[in-house]
């Protein structure tokens, strides 16, 4: 196809038919396709190929998800065991799905397990950790890294999908299950436990008080007594109106009720509200993800330390470690913030003074009014003089410069025009 005669390349035309072209180019392709018979034929060919490929349909899958598996899925940490022990996953263990060689391997594995189990029991070797110490091939190493880039941190069975020699599907599944259980146990042991529900408590109080100064100092005393602190505090003292105090107080969650009772004692409570948000699940999730991330970091560090590979692999691992470290620090900050919010309740407090307007019953005397007027006049005079002086000081230099510039031209014009003016004046 002669490219010079076509606005769009054949590949672009194909992308247009697949809906993968940018809107601008798609508009060009559509208009071109309406006019060009060659491209119409190409489009028809491409569509025919796609339709032909669609003739190859596979039979429907009979795979199903049984109730037992579904129940197992609902139990945290037991997905794996439930999946293996029941339901459609049991199909993998079902002998009718085994090819004949697997039967033989299974029998050999069973005999080997019976013979070797006593000796293995005597050996105290780390289980999951030891697996990491076994050198893997570079290809497997790369699989792990790539899986991480995909958003999937590959588990050992995925990174090394080829079963060990001598192990059948059953052996592989049991090995995977064992490794996963070990991993879950290890991760669980790393996750700090949470005692009781974690609740972020917040309260809002509005109090009217007759004695504002006393209330102000009482707030500090209450915070000191309840081991709290001021998050933010603003005091407004406008003239001729009520004073007010607004602030955010942080007190230990266990002291919240007592603190609120103390604050209510400062005056009349106008508004009170309390909220509690349970974050136990989020906190536990965060802890678990943090533990997982640390575990990942440790594994990557081990890989970097113990494995040799291409420079690109080393750089990829370094990048992964850096990324995981960033995630860990971010989650650590989230965890600390959440814990702080749980440990310390937040009280939004508003204290408003009950303002009493002062009545001035005695007007000032006449002499005092004259005196005040004289003082006011003198002050105005001084202020005026000072203002003029200040203006001269500020504008004087500029005026002088302009005067110097304009002096000679103005004098020249004056000398030239003056006789004419004088002559006209004499004629008149």
């Amino acid at each position, binding site marked *: 196809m002669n490219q010079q005669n076509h606005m769009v390349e054949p590949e672009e035309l194909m992308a247009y038919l697949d809906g993968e072209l940018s809107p601008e180019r798609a508009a060009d392709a559509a208009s071109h396709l309406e006019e060009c018979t060659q491209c119409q034929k190409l489009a028809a060919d491409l569509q025919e190929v796609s339709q032909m490929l669609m003739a*190859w349909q596979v039979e429907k899958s009979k795979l199903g998800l049984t109730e037992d598996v*579904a129940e197992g899925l609902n139990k945290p940490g037991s997905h794996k065991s439930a999946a293996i022990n029941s339901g459609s996953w049991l199909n993998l263990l079902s002998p009718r799905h085994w090819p004949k060689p697997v039967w033989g391997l299974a029998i050999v594995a069973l005999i080997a397990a019976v013979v070797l189990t006593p000796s293995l029991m005597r050996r105290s070797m780390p289980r999951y950790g030891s697996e990491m110490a076994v050198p893997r091939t570079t290809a497997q190493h790369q699989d792990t890294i790539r899986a991480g880039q995909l958003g999937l941190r590959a588990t050992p*069975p995925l990174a090394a999908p080829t079963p060990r020699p001598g192990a059948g599907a059953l052996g592989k599944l049991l090995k995977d299950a064992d490794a996963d259980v070990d991993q879950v146990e290890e991760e669980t042991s790393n996750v700090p436990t949470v005692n009781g529900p974690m609740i972020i408590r917040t309260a809002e109080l509005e109090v009217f008080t007759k004695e504002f100064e006393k209330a102000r100092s009482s707030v500090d005393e209450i915070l000191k007594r309840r081991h709290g602190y001021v998050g933010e505090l603003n005091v407004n003292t406008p003239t001729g109106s009520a004073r007010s105090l607004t602030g955010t107080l942080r007190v230990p969650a266990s002291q919240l009720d007592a603190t609120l009772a103390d604050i209510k004692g400062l005056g009349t409570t106008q508004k009170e509200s309390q909220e509690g948000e349970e974050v136990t699940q989020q906190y536990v999730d965060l802890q678990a993800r943090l533990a997982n991330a640390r575990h990942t970091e440790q594994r990557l560090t081990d890989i970097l330390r113990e494995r040799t590979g291409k420079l690109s692999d080393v750089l990829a691992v370094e990048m992964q470690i850096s990324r995981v470290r960033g995630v860990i620090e971010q989650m650590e900050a989230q965890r600390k913030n959440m814990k702080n919010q749980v440990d310390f309740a937040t009280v939004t407090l508003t204290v408003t003074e009950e303002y009493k307007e002062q009545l001035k019953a005695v007007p000032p005397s006449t002499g005092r009014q004259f005196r005040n007027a004289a003082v006011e006049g003198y002050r105005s005079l001084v202020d005026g003089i000072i203002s003029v002086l200040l203006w001269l000081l500020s504008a004087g230099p500029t005026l002088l410069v302009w005067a110097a510039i304009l002096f000679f031209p103005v004098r020249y014009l004056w000398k030239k025009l003056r006789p004419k003016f004088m002559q006209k004046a004499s004629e008149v």
Partner: protein
Amino acid sequence: MTTDEGLMLEFQRGSREAFEELFDRYRGPLYGFFRRRLERQDRAEDLTQETFLAVIRATSRYEPRSLVRTYLYGIALKLLAGERRKQANDLPVPESSPEPAGDDASDTVVWVRQALERLDSTDREVLMLREYEQLSYSEIAQLLRIPVNTVRSRLFRARMALKDCLQPDHPPDVALNRAEHKPGRQPVKLSAGKEGATQ
């Protein structure tokens, strides 16, 4: 309808229903993925199950950085690569041994399979991911770790190669009599009963 990513996050929080929904959505496509690429139906079923098993194992570590569909096919591709390595270590399977995707395959299906087999393996993978798994160019690029433009050029090359096979003057394949399959050039839609046919 909840997105796949939403379901995955719900499953991460322990929702059984979310996993069931994901399973229902993807068991067919994943089974089709393996079935078209493997000789044996039982291995296709096993690997489909193993894909979901891997999802269950990695639940706590899932991060919604890419589409769940891409995530699943990423796992499937790795399992498929492992299966192929395993098959390479085993005794080679004769060319005339069991055919994938149905013993009762029609002439058109046989022709399509043989035409696909003649393609370069990398071109074929791109084409199959596009045509059968209905993945976008960018998803294929992410899965195969190649640029999007490479995906486009490989896809075009594969389609052009298949188009050449459609030409009447194309030399007949060793195992394929083109004269018999000319009617099959028209799109053949298999019946629902056929889709449910057993091996």
